[in-house]
């Protein structure tokens, strides 16, 4: 069963192709680490998958639907560079807002449940502006998982997190995988990501240089993938 089908995707910035004919499929329940250097096109690809940008050519289908459809958007959870929560709203108001936007049946309960899971129930009425960095990050993680997405798109998720937020995120990712969700995360070969990953995809200069299962060598030697597939 295919969760994500990327078919010959090109993205042009003017005359410059940032993505050059990317095609791959991700089976349901897989966890893909999207690798590549800065500027290789990882973020561009993730933005297309998240429906923030349209491919110039080619198509992306998520769970058999067009990736810009409301159905896909409801099933997708996104965690990007920014935390995507509002500083001038309280923790509860933030989660309640996103619960409502994602059309959850009981937004109030969902918000409370996730505040508890992320250990923020004590400060639920505090404004996010007054939160510490770690608390904001945990709230951002809660915001991304709140609607129990079956496809998770994460852009460098571990880079800015503190240890507690990393533990929380890893726990949630494992739990999502166990319940059959599909994960795609861009990363700089961090151990945290590769340990979770069942597959890897390497992008070099806008092209897919390699896609396949993650092998033990990759975990042991961070340069392995780039040396083997990178400079072709």
């Amino acid at each position, binding site marked *: 069963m295919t969760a994500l089908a990327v078919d010959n995707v090109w993205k042009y910035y003017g005359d410059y192709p940032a993505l050059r004919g990317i095609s791959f499929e991700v089976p349901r329940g897989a966890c893909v680490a999207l690798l590549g250097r800065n500027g290789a096109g990882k973020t561009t690809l993730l933005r297309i998958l*998240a*429906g*923030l*940008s*349209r491919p110039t050519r080619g198509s992306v289908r998520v769970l058999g639907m067009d990736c*810009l459809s*409301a159905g896909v*958007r*409801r099933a*997708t959870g*996104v965690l*990007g*560079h*920014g*935390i*995507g*929560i*509002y*500083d*001038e*709203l309280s923790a509860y*108001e933030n989660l309640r*807002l*996103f619960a*409502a*936007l*994602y*059309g959850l049946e009981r937004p109030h309960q969902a918000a409370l449940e996730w505040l508890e899971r992320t250990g923020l129930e004590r400060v639920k009425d505090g*404004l996010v502006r007054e939160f510490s960095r770690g608390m904001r990050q945990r709230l951002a993680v809660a*915001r991304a998982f709140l609607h129990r997405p079956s496809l998770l798109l994460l852009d460098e998720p571990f880079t800015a997190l503190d240890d507690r937020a990393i533990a929380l995120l890893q726990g949630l990712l494992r739990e999502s995988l166990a319940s059959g969700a599909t994960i795609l995360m861009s990363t700089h070969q961090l151990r945290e990501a590769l340990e979770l990953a069942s597959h890897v995809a390497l992008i070099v200069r806008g092209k897919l240089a390699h896609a396949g299962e993650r092998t033990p060598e990759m975990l042991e030697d961070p340069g392995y993938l780039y040396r083997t597939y990178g400079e072709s």
Partner: protein
Amino acid sequence: MRYFRQVWTIAAKDLRSELRTKEALNASLSFALVILLLFSFAFDPTAELTREISGGLLWLVFAFAGALLLNRSFARELENDCLDVLVTSPVPASALFLGKALANWLLLLGIEIVCLPVFGVFYNVDWARQPAWLALVLLLATWGLTVIGTMFSALTVNLRLRELMLPMLVYPMLIPCLMAAMQLTTALVAGQAPAGDQVAWLRMLVGFDIIFTALSVALVETVLIG
């Protein structure tokens, strides 16, 4: 039904965070009052003369104050990349747009309601002689102003020089809307109910609102999703 709930959720979110911080609201309101004051130096503020140009004076104040408010509308989503999260959520771009426009509309109407009595007191003008008609003109023209302003707020959100770009693009677009509002308001402050030409101006205002609301709703997804 779900669509309108989404529009309201967005509008309520914007209103709540604006009323909590009052950043744009305070700036916009004090700017409006400053311009109201400055106009007293531009001409001899006798009651008759003021009444003759009241429409132009008031709508210039509202348009200037509105630009400050509208600048923040999409820009406030840039902090923490909230705009990306909103666009990836199941809320259609048009609902996002309408929600923001609705919030801006209510905020700007609030500013106008504060400005009107201040104008009346300072310039010794009895402005509320046609309250129902005046309210209608305020509602319609402010919607025209907000719909164009919110659209350009979305259009310029990712640009350098955003704050400079918005007024430069918005004011020429707003000329028909502002002109209708000025004509109607001047007549209403003088106590005349709309008749003849004024009805035609009112009709044009309605046409402007409908056409640009429809066009913005149709085009906003193109603006937000690259």
